């Protein structure tokens, strides 16, 4: 504001009034300015402290926010049984310079921790350093015992250790993690990020496994491995409606709590990573494809009198009937010749497309990194079509085979294999791979294999089992080896309304007295499946049927000496 003294001086009487007015006006202006600023400040203050509570936590948790998280979420089975957890594992160290009597301390420590050697302890404690590890990962009981000794100069450092209470039982599925809690195999590896995410730590990962079923399967497979001196075994139990695996076993297995001491063979997952030529179980797919495409029906058949000779190969039957065989006969007597001719009728293109839709030509979507990539011939020649018809020339993992068979018997829709528990409501039926009619016929045929074919030993009283045997010679650098077999059986029960699929596979079983020297799938793997079904049936709440109960289903005429008319 500029002073306008010359102008205002012209007016009389205003000379002494003017400065006061000016002063007051300035004062008011400044006052107004300050009031305005303070109003803003207080409005902001009210806004921050009272109105905007969400912007910042209204209650601070200074000091009280000790992390309760363990750093890695638990893994549990479908019923909540703990499979993997993280525990505080104190590690014992010593500060030798402050110890009073090293000899006595060593003696007493060796008493409460017997696995420590007294002489070695004395040597460690004699050192001049002020920090010596004595033992990593003590149990709470050991820590208590050491504390009770009251030896000065001993101390604990907290570490976290992954514990697998079920030990070897679920080793191949759950996998294991390293000392820094990094997942190295199985679910631990596949879901490492999720398990270690801070906001997920309190939510255990629920698997589809059921430890009871897993235990039964593992035990029966172990018995078979021992009986038949097999080098390994694999088995799965699968819910055919949802694709959930209730059990997945691979033998030999290992204790994930002591991974360092296990062999690579024990850590190899035969159920999901190993791919094998499966042999006759593949005839299930050949027959299903032919029936679904309509190139043959149940009354049709093929001449299996003479072996087929293609180039330098000869396709022959293991138990030749030397006559015309109907489709059911080809299936239950497991005729390679018949299956090969059936596949030729179908054509390689359609066969390949069918196997692709069943998911047999690409790795299984199962949630563990150990998922084997199937091997199949390129190009897919006629000879491939014929050998693949009876399961040679194509190698898939046992769990892929199990999922594919599940698709054939559950009404024909694809079920993606999963190790996660699914809620009953969230089950979506996948792509329809075969028609319902084909699925019904396949159930009838699978049942015939058990009632009158190669799979008799899989029968389990009360639970109508249907299934298919498979015996394949293992390929080596110099062709197939007659003595090294992959024997398997894939069974489904109850066959009238399939709920579960049980598969057992033995790696190089040798026949014994009880099997008359035979080591094929019908002699070695089928009894395992039968026993497993007898034990898990009641656990899973499958209602048994009486022996006299009718077995409804399509009429299948089976000519021949062994069977005549099977009502089913």
């Amino acid at each position, binding site marked *: 504001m500029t002073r306008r003294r010359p102008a205002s001086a012209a007016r009389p009487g205003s000379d002494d009034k003017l400065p006061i007015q000016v002063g007051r006006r300035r004062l008011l202006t400044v006052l107004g300015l300050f009031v305005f600023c303070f109003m803003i400040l207080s409005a902001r203050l009210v806004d921050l402290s009272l109105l905007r509570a969400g912007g910042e936590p209204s209650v601070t948790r200074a000091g009280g926010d*000790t992390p309760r998280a363990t750093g890695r979420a638990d893994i549990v089975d479908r019923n909540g*049984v*703990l499979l993997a957890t993280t525990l505080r594992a104190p590690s014992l160290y010593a500060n030798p310079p402050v110890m009073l009597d090293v000899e006595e301390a060593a003696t007493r420590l060796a008493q409460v921790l017997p696995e420590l050697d007294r002489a070695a302890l004395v040597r460690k404690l004699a050192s001049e350093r002020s920090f010596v590890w004595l033992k990593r990962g003590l149990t709470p009981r050991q820590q208590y015992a050491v504390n009770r000794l009251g030896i000065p100069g001993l101390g604990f450092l907290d570490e976290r250790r992954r*514990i697998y209470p079920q030990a070897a*039982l679920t080793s191949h599925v759950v996998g294991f993690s390293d000392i820094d809690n990094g997942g190295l195999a199985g679910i631990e590896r596949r879901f490492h990020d999720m398990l270690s995410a801070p906001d997920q730590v309190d939510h255990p990962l629920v698997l589809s496994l059921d430890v009871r079923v897993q235990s039964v399967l593992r035990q029966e497979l172990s018995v078979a491995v021992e009986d038949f001196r097999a080098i390994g075994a694999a088995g799965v139990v699968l819910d055919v409606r949802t694709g959930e695996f209730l059990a997945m076993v691979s033998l030999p297995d290992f204790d994930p709590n002591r991974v360092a001491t296990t062999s690579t063979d024990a850590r190899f997952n035969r159920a999901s990573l190993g791919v094998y030529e499966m042999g006759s179980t593949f005839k299930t797919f050949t027959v299903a494809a032919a029936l679904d495409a309509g190139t043959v029906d149940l009354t049709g058949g093929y001449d299996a009198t003479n072996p087929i000779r293609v180039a330098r190969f000869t396709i022959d039957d293991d138990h030749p009937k030397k006559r015309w065989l109907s489709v059911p006969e080809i299936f239950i007597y497991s005729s390679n010749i018949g299956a090969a001719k059936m596949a030729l009728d179908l054509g390689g293109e359609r066969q390949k497309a069918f196997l692709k839709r069943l998911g047999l030509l690409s790795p299984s979507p199962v949630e563990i990194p150990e998922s084997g990539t199937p091997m199949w011939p390129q190009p897919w020649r006629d000879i491939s079509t014929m050998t693949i018809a009876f399961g040679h020339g194509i190698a898939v993992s046992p769990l892929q085979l199990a999922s594919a068979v599940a698709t054939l018997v559950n009404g024909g829709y694809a079920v993606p294999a999963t190790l996660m528990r699914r809620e009953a409501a969230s089950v979506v039926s996948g792509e329809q791979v075969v028609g319902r009619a084909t699925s019904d016929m396949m159930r009838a045929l699978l049942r015939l294999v058990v009632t009158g074919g190669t799979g008799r030993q899989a029968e389990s009283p009360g639970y109508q089992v249907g299934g298919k045997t498979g015996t394949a010679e293992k390929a080596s650098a110099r062709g197939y080896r007659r003595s090294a077999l992959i024997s398997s059986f894939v069974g489904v029960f109850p066959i009238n309304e399939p709920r579960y699929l049980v598969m057992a596979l033995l790696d190089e079983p040798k026949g014994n007295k009880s099997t008359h020297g035979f080591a094929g799938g019908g002699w070695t793997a089928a009894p395992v499946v039968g026993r497993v079904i007898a034990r898990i049936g009641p656990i899973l709440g499958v*209602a*048994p049927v009486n022996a006299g109960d009718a077995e409804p289903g399509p009429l299948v005429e089976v000519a021949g000496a062994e069977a005549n008319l099977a009502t089913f």
Partner: protein
Amino acid sequence: MTRPLNVIGLVLVIAAAAGLFQLKHEVQQLEAELVALDRVLVEEYEALRVLQAEWSYLNRPERLTRFAAAHLELVPITASQIGRVHELPEPLGAAAAVVLASGDES
């Protein structure tokens, strides 16, 4: 007029300071209590986890099977032991019950 105002102001300042001090002291005490409680909570939580792991370890199906075989006169259930209600024999009438009780009927 300024003197009473000053006095009131002074009193208010002292009161506010005292109140603030008291409040801070209380908060500190509560915080210490919270830390102590939280430590107990963590300990309990850890103990719970250890117990859960032990529970799972002791309930391994293979171990239970072993114990059941050794100490129980029970065997796993088989399909033949499971029936349906309609498979049960017809309920006996009152007369039959009397006959049964007298031991004439097998």
